[in-house]
């Protein structure tokens, strides 16, 4: 099923034309209504009329999270505040939060892109969606909610937490679609196991997961534990929320909703735009957003883009799974390490529990990486030498993946913190 065939399967040339028209429009609106853009464009000597083709976007300055933060709270709004019908903010864990404002029209766009994505997962008006994303300032809950309601599915707006209740409802209501963060999904599955609720007791058709880093191995784990295909949802608060790109049944990249969000990949050091298939930092421009147009926002997410017609029939460009963030990248003894690499290595071990924590220390002017992994009945052996062998094997897998020696510590089951939202995977104790 395709929600909006006209757009999602649009011929490449036509889409480019539509994007250019919308880009010219949004640049003009931003320049005329948001002082920040006027100042930045003027400094760069760019006028909206200079945008004559899509490549001209490269002439425009990049916008960072710090820029948005400086405009806190409402400085980036392009319309009078009374036209804004909803606001969300980022979590603010790294400083002042950034505020995102939506007009009525923006909420419609958000509903539309999420409806397209949920349709990719097979959602129809017959489905019951259990939305464990938090409802609140976080965009996750509402984004999924709007899309599901636009389709006409039944939404259970349960939010995160109350894990035992989640399982009871999943069983009693016959939930067909589950929306989770990957770490919360795995936690839910674990608790379901404890409650004696097996795969056969559930009626899930698909699982949508987002808001967190993930690996293919983690997807397999989710699919296995819930006995349903699992698809990724990508988005970020600054641009809109979930719905910017979603996976089709191919499970090979996420279709970017290009008629609303224009993607580019840049080299985060040189700021140069990279070509099709090259890996770098994702930069997004909102093409249609009214309340808060965002021009060339640096997402800090690392991925690559691939154009062409997908076997699902869609022509929308595909984005690789996010393989890291320029800011969750750890520099260990000068080597760039992403938690996702360690996760990938861990999940190569049979019988390992998908809960881990990475601890970085600098005991004697040299970085040390410790990875804590929970022991499972499958891994445990009565023999010291075998247990040491298992630890060595995990260390070896990680070494192969990141090129650095690490110290793996086996910890007792269920002692690592479980997440009810975004998992804390890295504890950096270095005093830099």
């Amino acid at each position, binding site marked *: 099923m395709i929600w909006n065939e006209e757009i999602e399967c649009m011929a490449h040339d036509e889409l480019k034309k539509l994007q250019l028209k919308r880009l010219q429009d949004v640049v003009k609106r931003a320049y005329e209504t948001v002082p920040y853009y006027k100042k930045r464009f003027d400094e760069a000597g760019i006028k909206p009329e200079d945008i004559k083709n899509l490549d001209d976007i490269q002439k425009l300055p990049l916008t960072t999270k710090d820029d948005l933060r400086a405009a806190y709270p409402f400085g980036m709004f392009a319309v009078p505040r009374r036209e804004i019908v909803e606001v969300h903010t980022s979590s603010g864990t790294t400083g002042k939060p950034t505020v995102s404002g939506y007009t009525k029209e923006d909420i419609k766009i958000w509903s539309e892109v999420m409806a397209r994505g949920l349709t990719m997962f097979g959602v129809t008006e017959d489905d019951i969606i259990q939305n464990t994303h938090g409802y609140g300032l976080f965009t996750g809950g509402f984004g999924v909610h709007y899309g599901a309601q636009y389709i006409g599915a039944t939404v259970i707006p349960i939010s995160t937490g109350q894990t035992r209740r989640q399982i009871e409802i999943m069983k009693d209501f016959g939930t067909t679609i589950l929306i989770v963060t990957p770490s919360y999904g795995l936690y839910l599955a674990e608790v379901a196991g404890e409650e004696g609720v097996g795969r056969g007791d559930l009626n899930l058709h698909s699982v949508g997961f987002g808001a967190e880093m993930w690996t293919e191995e983690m997807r397999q784990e989710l699919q296995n534990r819930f006995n349903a295909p699992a698809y990724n949802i990508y988005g970020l608060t600054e641009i809109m929320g979930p719905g910017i790109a979603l996976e089709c049944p191919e499970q090979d990249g996420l279709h970017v909703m290009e008629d609303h969000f224009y993607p580019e990949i840049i080299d985060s050091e040189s700021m140069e735009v990279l070509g099709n298939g090259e890996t770098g930092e994702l930069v997004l421009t909102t093409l249609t957003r009214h309340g808060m147009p965002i021009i060339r926002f640096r997402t800090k997410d690392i991925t690559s883009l691939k154009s062409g017609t997908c076997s699902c029939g869609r022509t929308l460009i595909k984005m690789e799974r996010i393989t890291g963030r320029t800011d969750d990248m750890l520099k260990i003894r000068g080597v760039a390490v992403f938690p996702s690499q360690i996760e990938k290595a861990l999940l190569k071990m049979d019988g390992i529990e998908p809960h881990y924590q990475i601890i970085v220390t600098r005991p004697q002017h040299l970085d040390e990486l410790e990875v804590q992994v929970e022991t499972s*009945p499958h891994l445990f052996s009565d023999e010291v030498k075998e247990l040491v062998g298992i630890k060595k094997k995990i260390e070896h897998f990680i070494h192969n993946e990141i090129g650095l020696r690490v110290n793996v510590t086996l910890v007792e089951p269920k002692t690592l913190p479980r997440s009810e939202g975004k998992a804390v995977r890295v504890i950096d104790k270095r005093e830099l």
Partner: protein
Amino acid sequence: MKIKQLSIFLENKKGRMRNALDVLADAGFNIRALSIADTSDFGILRLIVPNPDEAKEILEKNNFVVKTGYVIAVEMSDQPGGLSTILGILDDSDINLDYLYAFVDEKEERAIVLLHPEDIDAGVEALKMGKATIIPSEDVYNW
């Protein structure tokens, strides 16, 4: 002939062993014999208790990773050279030991060694041939 033993994974952290033992104490298990193997990171606590399967279940409910295995309990004379005699029997049959632990049974005034050979059945066989006194599990649980 073989005695069921519990092996429990412990992090090498303050209070972990006590936690495990408290779980057993609260459930009314009296420990018959105990040893610990440790490395800098973790330890393996090995225990002999009556009703080992029940103890395992209770420990698992409390989030411990537990495995059951078997050891052989052999009586030895409580005087110099007692253990050496037993080891000599295994040595003569070319049987390797993974580990052992020993204690004194005060009620019966005897010393007992718990043996974990690589091949437990071969170990039982060799000890029988060597005329060692193997203690059956019922006796071990009733010490």
